[in-house]
């Protein structure tokens, strides 16, 4: 796996909940990790800062597993680089 993205996501989650990184796998759900609504918005803030992306509210509501978050971040990163690569015509 490409997995600087996954690695960074796991690091962000661990830092939000003050958890050891080993506790978090791609299959972990935010519920299992004990995330409440404030942890969730703090995580989104950390991810937006880490990857310099903007995560829409609707997208944010749909995530539950770490894998979803990694995929969502990759999708947003890809969209950003497409925007940058698009010709300015």
């Amino acid at each position, binding site marked *: 796996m490409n997995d600087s993205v996954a690695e960074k996501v796991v690091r962000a989650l661990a830092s939000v909940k003050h958890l050891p990184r080993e506790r978090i796998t791609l299959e972990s759900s935010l519920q299992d990790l004990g995330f*409440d*609504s*404030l942890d969730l*918005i703090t995580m*989104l803030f950390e991810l937006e800062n880490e990857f310099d992306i*903007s995560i*829409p*509210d609707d997208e*944010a509501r749909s995530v539950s597993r770490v894998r979803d978050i990694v995929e969502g971040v990759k999708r947003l990163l890809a969209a950003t680089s497409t925007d940058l690569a698009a010709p300015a015509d």
Partner: protein
Amino acid sequence: MRQRRVAVTGLGAICALGQNVPEFWKGLCEGQSGIGPIESVDVSGLRFQNGAEVRGYDPACYFDSSRMDLLDRFAQFAVLAAREALRDSGAVWTPELRETTAVVCGSSVGGQNAQDAGFRELYKLGRGRVHPLSIPRIMANAGACHISMEFGITGPVYTLSTACSSANHAIGLAFRMVGNSEVEMAIAGGSEAPFSLGLLKAWEAMRVIAPDTCRPFSRDRRGMILGEGGAMLVLEPLEAARARGAHIHAEIAGFGMSSDAHHIAQPSVEGPVRAMRAALRDAGVHPQQVGYINAHGTGTPGNDATETRAIHEVFGAHTHQLAVSSTKSMHGHALGAAGALEAVATTVALREGILPPTANFTTPDPECNLDVVPNQARQAKVEFAVSNSFAFGGLNAVLVFRAHGS
């Protein structure tokens, strides 16, 4: 000590639906939405674009230039609402009355415009000083102080801040002071002007603001919409109001408070249940006597479902006979002013026998199985009405109103 009955003899309001009570009430009855694109702040970098601002507001119409310098927008709204409420009450000032009148205001965030402007000077423009009137503009008690000074009111004057419950706490405590004979009159309510870029950014990060509009209790609700404004009620002992021939809009019959002691941002069912029960007990009213609830009804997925469960728990089978509407769908969520705007809406609803609707309603949500008076105001003679305010931090404040003459 014998508790005195408390009458509402004056009303004042300014919000997205209008700059006085008749305009506000007309908007409520017509199910108008005061929600639209935010104009006072550049929101191009924000995830949401809509708010319920007081549009076309020109402070120069209401204040001379030296007072405008001193009053942040939120304090102006407090003073304007108090002026209208006192004019409406027909109260005649005497030295004794000035000493025995209280002013109790709610505000969650105080002078945001002044604070934001000062921070901009420092952090963005790199200047080394901020305006010398920053502190008197920013302090959350400024609204109450300016009401006190404008009318020479020298009794107890204070502001309290319990986020979105501020105004209900303010009105409730003023009701207590009048009822307990601590004061002979009170001006109570709240005001707020939260449209500053810094605060809007903080709300954006909280991810509770709807990208479109406020649809309380609808299945497709996507969050709250911020509003601004101010509203004040003049409260007097019922007997004194009758004796001076005052026009009595309604009575405040009870007040209840509770804290969830649960979570700083997630509501509980139990806390609101205990506050509603305490308010009904204080009023000496059975749940079956209540005909209308002005809900907290923010339009967030969490609040509306939780509030619905709390209402069912308190009112049981009678819930199906209850009309429950959220006027935030029209005037937005004005934070520390919300309860005051809703108290004015509830008072006029009882007086006129018309229940304001929940606007922008689209699809029923099984989790919000209430009669929400969707989109159309409704004629209904109601004797008792409840107005709920629940705040971040789990602070709940509930008022019970009684129609006058019933």
